[in-house]
């Protein structure tokens, strides 16, 4: 059997062609092959959420998928959200609310929050905490992360109201 299989993936808008061993985890492909070390690896069995990325617009655990399975897919990692100079709105909310301390869980938290903000109303803290329940953080006690999500949710809802008003005109 041939050891390596060619794959084509788009990561943060950049097209990549690589040959990978089937056993290579997507998380290791991102970190070791593409050198995108923003995606963190905590537990490697789907429990901690640190390696959460977006695959074709949905959050997934990068440690529970093989790179070869992502052939033809569009991936977004934390590097695709914003930069230190120009953070995106969610990253700014984390910054403003002090929603991180050591930062290890933060890439996974951001990707998880991005997906839950696009899929769920998150109208109360119970829903927000439910959405965060698959990501472990050992520093913050979660409270500040909940606050950041609340802030970003309010911005999202305000934007929706704005858009609706614009369309009505």
């Amino acid at each position, binding site marked *: 059997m041939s*050891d390596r299989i060619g794959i084509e993936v788009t990561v943060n808008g950049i097209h990549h062609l690589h040959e990978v061993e*089937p056993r290579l985890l997507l998380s290791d492909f991102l970190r070791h092959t593409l050198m995108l070390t923003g995606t963190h690896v905590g537990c490697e069995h789907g429990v901690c959420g640190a390696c959460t990325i977006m*695959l074709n617009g949905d*959050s997934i*655990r990068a440690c529970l998928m093989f790179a070869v399975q992502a052939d033809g897919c569009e991936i977004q990692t934390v590097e695709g959200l914003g930069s230190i100079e120009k953070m995106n709105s969610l990253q700014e909310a984390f910054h403003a609310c002090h929603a991180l301390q050591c930062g290890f869980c933060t890439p996974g938290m951001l990707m998880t929050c991005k997906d839950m903000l696009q899929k769920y109303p998150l109208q109360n803290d119970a829903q927000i905490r439910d*959405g965060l329940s*698959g990501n472990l953080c050992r520093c913050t006690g979660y409270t500040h992360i909940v606050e950041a999500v609340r802030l970003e949710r309010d911005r999202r809802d305000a934007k929706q109201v704005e858009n609706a008003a614009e369309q009505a005109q």
Partner: protein
Amino acid sequence: MKPPKFEYLRPASIEEAVAALAAAGDEGKIIAGGQSLVPMMNFRLLSPSVVIDINRIPGLGDIQEQPDGGLKIGALARHHALETSETVKKLYPVLHAAMQQVAHLAIRNRGTIGGSITHADPAAELPMLMKLLDARIKLVSSRGTRIVDAEDFFLGALSADVQENELVTEIYLPPLPQGAGWAFEEVARRAGDFALAAVGVILQVEQGKVVEARIGVMGVADTPLRINDAETILFNQACDPATLEQTVQAVLQAIEPSTDLHASAEYRKHLTEVLIRRAIGLAWLRATGENNE
């Protein structure tokens, strides 16, 4: 924490997948969502030499209402698709409710119904829901097709009636009785974790009497259970306090939970008692129209 080498195949049809399984002998393993398989491979608890990826088989994740009012669910239907399906919500509100408790969003985005029931974790929601909904599971192999009732499908912890080289392709749910009341109640350590205990109830009530009762429990035995003795007690009765108490006791007699690091046997039994009493009451209210939420 890295899986050993394997050969990777990506069949484009059920026929190709089944042929690949047959060719791989006992060395082949199907990967669907991979949410249970990949952790086991990362820990090297499993090391298949051929991994057959069914994720690209067209139509395998379809969720389709049937002419008889039932539902066909393709094995590759993701948990998030079931969670958000309007058809599921309309036809099987109990399944819709249970799906909210299945794992976390990133897991629900990948995990599949076929994978979950084949993995047969006794603390997972879908195996119990399959028994509660009298599901029929379709398995295909190079030898042909087999249909297995959910009642017979779960053999033990992490063991389902999937024979050598068989692939689960589809789950059929028969229609629920008209106006049936339902409830799903679960306790887990953390939202999305495996249940310490959970129960599902379906009650059909006519003229103040139960004409069909289904009671499912999970997390308290090697497999999810239907408690036939308790279902029989409810039959042809109103849900008065004495009948309810008798039913709850029948449930408790039928289970023998075990102690593990998550909870003691006594605590699981206590949870089951609290949850089943609550669920039967709620299903009764929904069936009799006293609670239409």
